[in-house]
């Protein structure tokens, strides 16, 4: 069972503001779906290595060629740039990541 504090901790991790009502319904949902997740306990998965497989595609690599995105102006107009070209956010001085 997941308690409400845990629900709030998860919301904090993923940066979601949730109302107390939302927290209640999320908690209920969590506990229902975690019940479903228990079904996986019945499968013979001990010897399964999920990272070994027949890969259809291996990571392709491109040449080290530079090409300039010629539509930066479009980006400028569409994005939250300020007039100097910076994105502006509330000050993070004094905060740490």
């Amino acid at each position, binding site marked *: 069972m997941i308690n409400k504090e845990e629900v709030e901790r*998860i919301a904090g991790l*993923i*940066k979601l503001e949730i109302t107390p009502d*939302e927290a209640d319904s*999320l908690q209920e949902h969590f506990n229902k779906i975690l019940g*479903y997740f228990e079904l996986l306990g019945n499968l013979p998965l001990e010897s399964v290595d999920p990272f070994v497989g027949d890969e259809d595609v291996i990571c392709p690599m491109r040449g080290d060629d530079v090409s300039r995105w010629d539509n930066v102006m479009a980006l400028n107009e569409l994005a939250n740039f300020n007039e100097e070209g910076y994105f502006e956010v509330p000050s993070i001085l004094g905060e740490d990541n």
Partner: protein
Amino acid sequence: MSVRELSAREIAGLVKRGELKATEVVRAVFDEIKNNEKKLNALITIMEERALKRAELIDEKVAKGQWKEKALLGVPVVLKDNICVEGYPTTCGSKMLKKWISPYNAGIVDYLEEAGTILIGKSNMDEFAMGSSTEHSAFGPTSNPWDLERVPGGSSGGSAASVAAGYVPLAFGSDTGGSIRQPAAFCGVHGMKPTYGLVSRYGLVAFSSSLDQIGPFTRTVEDMALALDVIAKHDYRDSTCWTGNRPSYSEAILNANIKGMRVGVVRDFMEEGLDDELAQAVEKGLGILVENGAIPVDLNLGDIKECALPCYYIIAPAEASSNLARYDGVRYGLREDADNLLDQYIKTRGKGFGDEVKRRIMIGTFVLSSGYYDAYYLRGLKARKYVCEKFKEAFSNVDVIVMPSTPTPPFKKGELVGDPIQMYLSDIFTLPVNLAGLPGISVWMGLNSTGLPMAMQIIAPKWHEVRILKAAAKIEETIGACPLAPGGE
């Protein structure tokens, strides 16, 4: 014959021969949209001006004898609103991206334009493709053209409805756990999810990157093959895109012969939890294939039906929680101003995302978080591997597998929206196919006793879309092409 009744192949033929003008096609399409959009709400963005310009260009080229080689010349097309078109909004059905305009084209948009299509609009969808009813859209729900009280399925409900209602003969959606096949089944059209990696995901706004795949909705199998010919290309901009050679799907289905094709049927899937008429539809489909020379084989897929749902609802939300983290109000999209950064983040995301998206990114964050990773995420990956192995075993004995597309016919609006897990269960037959990265089609199987569409799913091993198309073509020979839905008149 009116334009709305024509298939994509027919339109392209007429336009190339100069017997039908692209501009006439576009006018007919927008008439149709104007008449029906109020009740259907299938489209989020309508690109009338762009479409008209494009049609004029096509008519000009045709008049000069050019562009005759283009396979889909003059064919009007609708795209799900999570596929980026330069200069137009790509909302993903979310408040978060309501005003975001993509500065680039998705891979398939380039391919479609190259093939001569005309983009008509962007279709309604469950927010960020999370849902099975198109009710989780910030732009209101889409109606099922067969019964306006019912949902069109989802998440690509707008695209399915656009084809069923006769707006266009060809639309595209994305399928992460059934989001093409389930709405296709609900709306009485064909819908295919290709093998993971067959079609470029570049420019498809990610929900769950290891599961998402773009695919077509059509009313004929021939159009399905034609659409695949155009979009199934290697795109270097998507590192997960397969580099292998794609056959010509249209050629492969000419005079399709399925003699000796081994068709697996999973008896377990036909028992409890499946609507009787839909079970009969699968039997009927199997019967048609057998009449055409196929060999039926009873299959056991172990516990995959039981494990698919938990497995999917671990992996997809985990990836989604990461994919949707970028919507933080800093660079684009919705921003809720606040005097400190943390508040700006949580308010923007709290306001920008709807309930279902919140549920999923919360679950996804949880299963990846420290202390739960092994118990959930890692176990989910193992279960996924198990599903893959089971299918692999099955395909050592059969060439294709038939199974239901959905457990029920289309449900009513509002019926399941308050019960997320019941809603999840409507994808129970489509989820395993995504988990294993296989191709699958939902084919039209006629109407049930209450006049609602029925369907059957055909799946094949990776990269074997041709087998699916051949089998589907045989079904269509007997059942007929998908009719236009009454709601679209």
